[in-house]
């Protein structure tokens, strides 16, 4: 679909001839993420669907205690030090960002009075600045007012390298932040920024109070007493925190949303394992909510028959995929294998990659291994809707794979393995140790065998595979095998950062200590050009078309074979309502609206 057709569709939505939902579904089918679609509509002046189905309480509190369970416990409560979602979620009970991302990826204001857009003039047309109007009469838990100074301070705090803030990636593209008045800030970017909601929004956008952290900026950041005793603006006030175990909060009687929150106390207990956490919510009802259910779907289904809770599935953008190494993993050049100076002996042959793409039985992997926890997909860039892409198609067809390989001159040898120019189609397939992944490997190996490709399966301990240890050859970023499989997480609703993993300057190598993000080491001038264009493209429609193009380039060239589009899964008690899980934000993004029924 080209730019022109997209514009026609948007006009249909504007005129009411096409429903907003139908438009979103179509776009998602094209491989455009829902947040981006929302952005497209917003910039075209179509109002976003702000009305969320919810109850309307007449008073604050009265709900008693809500008990939540994270099988990885939060270890710190300063959002700028968070090393994972557990820490971001823990902090989110007390701290809030200017805005959140709802399940459809729309920007949902929290501390902001409204959502900036080009139409209301708060986002500049050139994309160089965004102005946020802050909600008035918001107070920190200690009674001090929340103002523009706090927002400016967070940027300064994060940007000080000595603070070692983990959120710096969201803030370093900011040139300056100006305080327009006590309740307005203007953020000026270094270059046109279509994704202006990067800073101060979502899990990394939580704002800490200036008056308590001012003295602890930079080198002294670790010493701030408020690192462990947060004073925020959120629906719950801090009561107690034991790192690695338990967070407790009590209702904030002055919360800035009327008649919220519903619960009087909140508890976030950590530790243990995912399966017993699922039991505690779904089967025994001891807890109300549990995070990240990495449990086989058949077990979850059995637990659900107990009837005290259920599984809640939110769409996110995380693809489980197989990468085809474009460099030679078996030859050492300048002290590294898989060096960008080499070429893979057979994976650079498009026919071999085409064949691989035909040999992954995505339907079986989806149905027999992952169940509701994923969807089979043809796309690398997926989005929150169940409609499959119309641009890209996948199929499982051993005969066709055989034909492709035959046509390319790969002849079967006496042992049934194909050979061409003395090179045998033998490949090493690595992944991390995880029951689902080993089952998937088996399914693929079997199909490959039928097409005359010999696969040697290798599995690596997760703590090694996903580590950034430069001395260990078995990490995913060294990629010292022919193909490998894992999931990359899309931590942001905007795909720009996510898609940089195929740009040529991100190729992982010894020089960048294997921290480059382009693991398959594919290089394409065309891809680089489209990516760069999207980075500063202010027309959301053009930009969407660019992301579709990037996805299609990767899929058509079979640089990766998407195996499964994974969902984010939580367990929720039947009586707990309003959790409204969003794959684009913290589990607690909607915490103020959680309530209990019956």
């Amino acid at each position, binding site marked *: 679909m080209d730019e022109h057709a997209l514009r026609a569709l948007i006009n249909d939505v504007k005129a009411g001839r096409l429903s907003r939902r139908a438009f979103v579904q179509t776009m998602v089918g094209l491989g455009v993420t829902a947040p981006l679609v929302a952005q497209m509509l917003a910039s075209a002046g179509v109002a976003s669907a702000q009305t969320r189905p919810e109850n309307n309480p007449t008073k604050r509190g009265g709900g008693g205690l809500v008990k939540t369970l994270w099988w990885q416990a939060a270890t710190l409560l300063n959002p700028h030090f968070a090393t994972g979602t557990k820490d971001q979620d823990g902090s989110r009970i007390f701290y809030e960002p200017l805005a959140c991302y709802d399940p459809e990826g729309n920007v949902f204001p929290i501390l902001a009075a409204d959502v900036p857009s080009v139409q209301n003039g708060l986002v500049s047309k050139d994309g160089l600045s965004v102005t946020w109007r802050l909600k008035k009469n918001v107070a920190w838990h200690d009674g001090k007012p929340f103002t523009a100074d706090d927002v400016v301070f967070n940027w300064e705090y994060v940007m000080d390298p000595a603070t070692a803030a983990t959120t710096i990636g969201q803030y370093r593209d900011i040139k300056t932040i100006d305080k327009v008045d006590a309740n307005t800030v203007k953020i000026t970017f270094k270059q046109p920024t279509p994704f202006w909601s990067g800073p101060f929004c979502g899990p990394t956008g939580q704002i800490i109070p200036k008056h308590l952290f001012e003295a602890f900026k930079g080198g002294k950041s670790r010493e701030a007493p408020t690192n462990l005793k947060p004073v925020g603006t959120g629906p719950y006030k801090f009561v107690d925190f034991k790192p690695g175990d*338990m967070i407790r909060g009590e209702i904030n009687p002055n919360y800035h949303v009327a008649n919220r929150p519903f619960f009087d106390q909140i508890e976030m207990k950590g530790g243990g394992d995912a399966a017993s956490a699922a039991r505690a919510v779904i089967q025994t009802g001891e807890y109300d909510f549990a995070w990240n259910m990495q449990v086989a779907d058949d077990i979850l289904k059995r637990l659900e028959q107990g009837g005290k809770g259920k599984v809640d599935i939110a769409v996110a953008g995380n693809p489980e995929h197989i990468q085809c190494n474009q460099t030679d993993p078996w030859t050492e050049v300048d002290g590294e294998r898989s060096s960008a100076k080499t070429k893979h002996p057979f994976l650079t042959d498009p026919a071999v990659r085409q064949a691989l793409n035909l040999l992954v039985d995505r339907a079986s992997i989806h149905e027999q291994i992952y169940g509701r926890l994923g969807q089979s997909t043809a796309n690398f860039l997926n989005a929150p809707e169940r409609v499959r892409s119309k641009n890209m198609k996948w199929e499982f067809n051993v005969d066709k794979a055989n034909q492709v390989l035959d046509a390319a001159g790969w002849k079967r040898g006496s042992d049934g393995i194909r050979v061409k120019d003395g090179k045998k189609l033998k490949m090493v397939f690595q992944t991390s140790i995880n029951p689902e992944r080993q089952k998937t490997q088996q399914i693929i190996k079997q199909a490959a065998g039928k097409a005359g490709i010999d696969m040697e399966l290798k599995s690596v301990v997760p703590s090694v595979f996903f580590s950034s*240890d430069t001395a260990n050859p078995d990490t995913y970023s060294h990629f010292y095998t022919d193909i490998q499989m894992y999931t990359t997480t899309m931590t942001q609703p905007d795909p720009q950062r996510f898609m940089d993993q195929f740009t040529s300057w991100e190729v992982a190598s010894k020089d960048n200590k294997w921290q480059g993000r382009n693991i398959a080491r594919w290089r394409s001038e065309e891809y680089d050009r489209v990516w760069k264009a999207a980075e500063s493209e202010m027309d959301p429609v053009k930009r969407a078309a660019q992301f579709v193009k990037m996805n299609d380039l990767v899929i058509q060239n079979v640089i990766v074979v998407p195996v499964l589009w994974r969902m984010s899964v939580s367990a929720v008690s039947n009586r707990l309502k309003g959790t409204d899980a969003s794959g684009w934000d913290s589990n607690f993004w909607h915490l103020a609206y959680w309530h209990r029924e019956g």
Partner: protein
Amino acid sequence: MSRYVIRRLVIAVPALLGISIVLFTILALAPGDPFGELASNPNVPREVAQQLRAKFGLDDPIPLRYARWLTSMLRGDWGFSFVSRVNVDTLILQRLPTSLFVLGSAQILGLLVALPIGTYSALRPYSVFDQIATTLAFIGFSLPTFFTGLVFILVFSLWLDWLPFIYRADIAATGWRWWWEQARQAAMPVAVLGLFQGATLTRFVRSAVLDVIRLDYVNTARAKGLSESITVGKHVIRNALIPVVTLVALQIPGIFTGDVITEQIFRVPGIGSLLISSILANDTPVIMAITFVFSCLVVLFNLVADMLYGWLDPRIAYR
């Protein structure tokens, strides 16, 4: 006596140093690093992890890091956790009361089971009671605690729905209700650990009593007409308990390590679960501190066992 203690303590110093060097080297050489999660997150620039590594001194050579750890340890500074950026001693002290409560109760339960059953078995060896007790004891110490823990959860939480299987360090209740809740949630972890201990101890008490009961002075006591209860209570058990007391002292560090898995199963926020989560997060300062505390406990309780032995048995002299 005091010279003996001092000598033992002095000998303990090189032993502990050796242990700490081994621990530190193994941890430093082990794969994984505390900022791995940051490195795989596209939104965190790679400089951040590098900066953190440099800031926390992770890129320095191992001997230098060890020397730094040792000197600050000697000054009483245990360092801070890479993951939570909290001081290690604060973390450990926060967890200690829970662990001590669970372990102490388990040990008491174990003794309460072992003493009467072990003694009674020894008084009537190869009787039906003894056979049953022996069988149960063998089953008890053959089953690992993680297995019994899961069985307990299945029976008491899932089937009968009597007890909660998630332990909470601070219960939001006061007075009798607090005690009731505490007893309910501690029942399963304490029973799992206590019965395991009890099974081993039962066998030990039985053999110790059997050793003593055949001795001549017991026959003498009986011959001069003392009642059976006085013979057993005053003459047999007191002497039989000497090796048992030392065994209990020697077992205490072992319980701490055995407790690691039980704490994980029941989510007891004690030292053991802190150790596991730190290992999973590659949080070296915390792992180092806890394992080092465990080794200190081993050395210390060895000494305590020796002291107790001499105190209970005057025939043993220290030189």
